[in-house]
């Protein structure tokens, strides 16, 4: 039997020495001979008619080579940016987004012209001199008002501001509510936030007319996906477009779609005949890279007096911004599909309304719909506990499916693969010292101090996705993931994948899988990703799918390689295939471990003469893996805060996270993902909020001085632990972990804050729970 050594090993990420010593190669590190810099002139208005664009002065500025507006681009680009409209069953009004505004700007920061110049500084200077004459139009900022009949419109030629209005019923909701002893209602806000990857977006395009070849370097999570849409938009065959996404400094979901600037840089290269580079500034990043969240949830919960949960009604109002994001409807859909959380409900009823406003589009941000779901259902359970004066842990435990009830089907028909929710909760409560904390809380309350304990027991969905399930929402796209595993004659291995690593440590994790499965040295495994010219088609990295879909594809390719290698080894050992055992990279004859061939020896033979009759040379395999189900990680997070009764300042005193993402390939990477995810959720819970001016639609949080993300001083030491409940849906039993922390943590933090303030009768607090907000609430409550 094989003794696993690499799978499960806590080893350092092999990509880090390069990255942390500044030897990474990001798009902005790359250059082309004769390259021009592109600067984008952006709308200073949130909604206006473009009367004219005067480029006279800018055209005369030093170094300027060309200035292009929509009129020029229309000769090069057709259609608009893609929208997964099929996610929106009752599609109402989904405006077409051309990459650059022609007659009407609909959000602050929308491209209106581009300047090409020899130097980046010259391009930026000249862009300031492009004069756009605007005729202001009514600005739609408040998206709830925008729903109403007769509201001002985000697009002057649209019928209204409703992008979609869809219902997701699950069971007999009326009956569930009839049975209820208590019904609680709440409005839960999910403010807009910036995804804020460390590296902003950067694009470099080089169009060569000979052979109609376009090479596009872009900081993206989805190189193959970008290529498809450039092919459509620019009319260049996919085979003649090469998209390269080299080292990428994070994406958090904001780089998983094609962007206007990718089309514009490519077209500008074609128009100008020169390579073109565009580097997003942080100011632009805040204006023109998609935002996350941006919802209102109205919830109604029905429960019995003993804490049994009965029914949940959720209405989601989603602030799409001016254009429905490429995956704009996905967050709303997922937020409803996962809203039942890890509880047994008799019925569920959901509705989502997508609304247009004069703002940047919202699109996925780490968790994409699941943090929203977890937040609302974890708040809902706490509201019930508060109403019934029960311990929130007891309400949770009462309503969990037991381990034996898996696979568990939620009211919307989602089938959770495996779980043991009580176990993670018990473990987290034990680590945090729950009973002792409750005692301490009671004591402190007597002294007028506000200690709060917040629970979040979440379940999430990863491994997007089984084609059978995604078919109807993805427009028949099967979201499989691919790999090519090639063993070279000398035994080292190259793996090419369709996923894309931009901080997740795939080089390490995937190599661990390959090293174990093929029995080759970890160091001899090379992972290639990010270049469409040497990787198989894949949908890229998001939704915590790379391991449970892409990783499994690698594993399956490795198995195919082993199968072939075994045949060759049997031939070499003059033994029957059935008598050959593969163990630790060696093929030996059953019962005589000395009669053996290593994978390297077999690989060499695979490229020589004398193979078994009819066998082709080479040792490689390709797999496109279509998983049979999603995977369903879960866990229990507990946050302990103290709120300053005078200032409203929140101090996180303890944070415990017990997560279950199935089997673990590299515990250090898994812990790192939890850390980062929790930090981002603490950001949303306590600090972050994108603010647009109500009257003008201009971005008030336009710099990082006005928008607070937490830093080292704000993130507490996290106490991490895990349980392991393997997924039955794939060979490695893995589930995915890239977003778990973000999904779990905002509810844990907010539940703790609410718990802290509950002596004042406060039942709900919206995010960010900033000191001024809490102070105001305390003031009101004390009146």
């Amino acid at each position, binding site marked *: 039997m094989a003794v696993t050594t690499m799978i499960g090993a806590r080893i350092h990420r092999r990509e880090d020495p390069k990255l942390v010593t500044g030897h990474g190669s990001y798009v902005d590190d790359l250059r082309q001979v004769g390259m021009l810099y592109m600067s984008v002139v952006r709308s200073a208005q949130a909604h206006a008619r473009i009367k004219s664009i005067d480029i006279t002065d800018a055209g005369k500025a030093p170094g300027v080579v060309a200035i292009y507006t929509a009129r020029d681009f229309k000769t090069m680009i057709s259609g608009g940016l893609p929208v997964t409209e099929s996610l929106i069953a009752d599609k109402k009004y989904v405006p077409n987004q051309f990459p650059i505004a022609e007659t009407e700007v609909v959000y602050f920061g929308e491209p209106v012209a581009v300047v090409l110049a020899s130097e980046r500084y010259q391009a930026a*200077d000249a862009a300031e001199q492009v004069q756009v004459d605007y005729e202001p139009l009514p600005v739609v900022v408040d998206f709830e008002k925008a729903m109403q009949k007769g509201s001002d419109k985000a697009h002057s030629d649209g019928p209204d501001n409703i992008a979609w209005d869809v219902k997701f019923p699950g069971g007999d909701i009326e009956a569930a509510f009839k049975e209820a002893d208590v019904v609680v209602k709440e409005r839960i806000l999910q403010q807009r936030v910036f995804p804020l990857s460390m590296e902003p977006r950067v694009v470099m395009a080089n169009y060569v007319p000979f052979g109609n070849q376009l090479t596009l370097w872009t900081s993206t999570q989805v190189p193959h996906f970008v290529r498809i849409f450039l092919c459509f938009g620019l009319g260049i065959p996919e085979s003649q477009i090469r998209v390269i996404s080299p080292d990428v400094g994070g994406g958090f979901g904001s780089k998983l779609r094609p962007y206007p600037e990718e089309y514009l840089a490519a077209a500008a290269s074609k128009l100008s005949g020169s390579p073109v580079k565009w580097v997003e500034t942080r100011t*632009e990043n805040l204006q023109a890279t998609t935002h996350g969240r941006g919802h209102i949830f109205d919830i109604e919960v029905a429960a019995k007096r003993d804490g049994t949960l009965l029914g949940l009604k959720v209405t989601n109002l989603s602030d799409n911004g001016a254009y429905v994001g490429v995956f704009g409807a996905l967050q709303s859909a997922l937020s409803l599909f996962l809203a039942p959380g890890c509880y047994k409900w008799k019925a569920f009823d959901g509705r989502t309304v997508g609304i247009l406003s004069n703002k940047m589009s919202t699109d996925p941000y780490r968790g994409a719909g699941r943090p929203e779901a977890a937040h609302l259902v974890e708040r809902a359970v706490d509201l019930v506990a508060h109403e019934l004066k029960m311990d929130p842990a007891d309400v949770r435990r009462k309503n969990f499916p037991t381990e034996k009830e898996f696979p568990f089907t939620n009211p919307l028909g989602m089938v959770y693969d495996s779980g043991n929710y009580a176990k993670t909760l018990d473990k987290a409560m034990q680590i945090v010292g729950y009973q002792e904390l409750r005692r301490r809380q009671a004591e402190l309350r007597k002294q007028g101090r506000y200690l709060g304990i917040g629970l979040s027991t979440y379940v999430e969905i990863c491994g997007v996705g089984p084609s059978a399930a995604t078919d109807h929402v993805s427009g028949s796209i099967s979201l499989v993931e691919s790999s090519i595993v090639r063993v070279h004659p000398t035994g080292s291995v190259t793996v090419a994948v369709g996923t894309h690593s931009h901080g997740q440590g795939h080089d390490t994790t995937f190599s661990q899988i390959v090293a174990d499965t093929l029995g080759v040295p970890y160091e001899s495994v090379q992972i290639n990703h990010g270049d469409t010219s040497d990787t198989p088609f894949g949908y890229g990295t998001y939704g915590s799918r790379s391991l449970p879909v892409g990783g499994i594809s690698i594993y399956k390719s490795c198995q195919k390689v082993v199968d072939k290698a075994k045949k060759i080894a049997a031939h070499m050992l003059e033994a029957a295939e059935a008598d050959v055992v593969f163990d630790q990279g060696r093929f030996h004859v059953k019962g005589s471990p000395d009669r053996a061939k290593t994978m390297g020896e077999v690989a060499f033979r695979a490229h020589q003469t004398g193979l078994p009759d009819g066998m082709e040379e080479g040792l490689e395999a390709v797999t496109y893996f279509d998983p049979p189900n999603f995977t369903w990680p879960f866990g229990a997070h507990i946050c302990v805060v103290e709120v300053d009764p005078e200032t409203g300042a929140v101090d996180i005193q303890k944070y415990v996270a017990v997560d279950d993402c199935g089997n673990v390939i590299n515990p250090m990477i898994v812990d790192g993902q939890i850390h980062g995810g929790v930090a981002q959720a603490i950001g949303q819970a306590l600090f972050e909020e994108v603010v647009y001016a109500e009257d003008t639609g201009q971005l008030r949080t336009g710099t990082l*001085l006005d928008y607070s993300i937490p830093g080292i001083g704000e993130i507490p030491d996290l106490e991490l632990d895990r349980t392991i409940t393997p997924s039955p849906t794939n060979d490695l039993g893995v589930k995915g972990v890239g977003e778990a922390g973000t999904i779990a943590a905002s509810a844990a933090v907010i539940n703790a804050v609410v718990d802290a303030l509950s002596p004042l009768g406060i039942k709900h607090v919206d995010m960010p729970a900033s*000191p*001024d907000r809490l102070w*105001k609430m305390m003031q009101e409550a004390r009146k």
Partner: protein
Amino acid sequence: MIPAAFEYARASSVEEASKLLNKFGEDAKVLAGGHSLIPLMRLRLAQPTALIDINGIKELDHIKEDGHKLRIGALTRHVTIQNSSVVKDKLPLLAEIAGEVGDNQVRNMGTMGGVIAHADAAGDYPTLALMLDAEIVTNQRTIQAKDFFKDLFTTSLGPDEIVTEVVFPVANGPHKYIKFRRRLFDWAIVGVAAQKMNGDWRIGLTNVGPTPVRAKAVEDALKKGAKPEEAAQHASDGLNPAGDLRASPEYKKHLARVLTKRAIQQST
């Protein structure tokens, strides 16, 4: 995020800097630590035609004890002030405040003169300068702190005037600076400094108006024997702070009162 074009010149003496300022005219600016000026230039909120770099003027980087005064050179970095044994001994509140400015990078670059000349409402030193009646010495004259801070980002400095020193009185009685902020390295939402000096309290407030504020009403109440919590109620007297994304005017006034109480109580 890309500054507009500008000229650059480096001065090796105050005289030379002054000449260069005159040469480049009123839109020229002194460059000290650059940690306020450069961010503004990158956002093109400031577009100076020329930068006169004073970082080479060594004599502006000093901490001198001078009888009952402490003379801090304009180019003295926050980190130097924070770690100076002289400052810790003669005006420990200043060392404490310096240690609370921004993060390590900011403290390694930012200067006393830069904070004073920039006169950001949330700047920490101006509060101390005002409440302790410090003097701002320039290449042309000496200005009392109470006459120096005119408005938001506005001082009584002329266009070609260069701060050379800030002169504080020695004070090593009980003191405390409380800086209320969202994040460890943030500017103050509200800051309160308390210093007992010659038997009386001096109380200064940061970021509750366009300029630093000396909380005279609190000082007077304390003088009359009011308890800290009673006196602190006067911290918001006459304040009319502007609200922003982090705090409403009411909240800032509330913080001024709470933090004043705490600063006095926690003074050691």
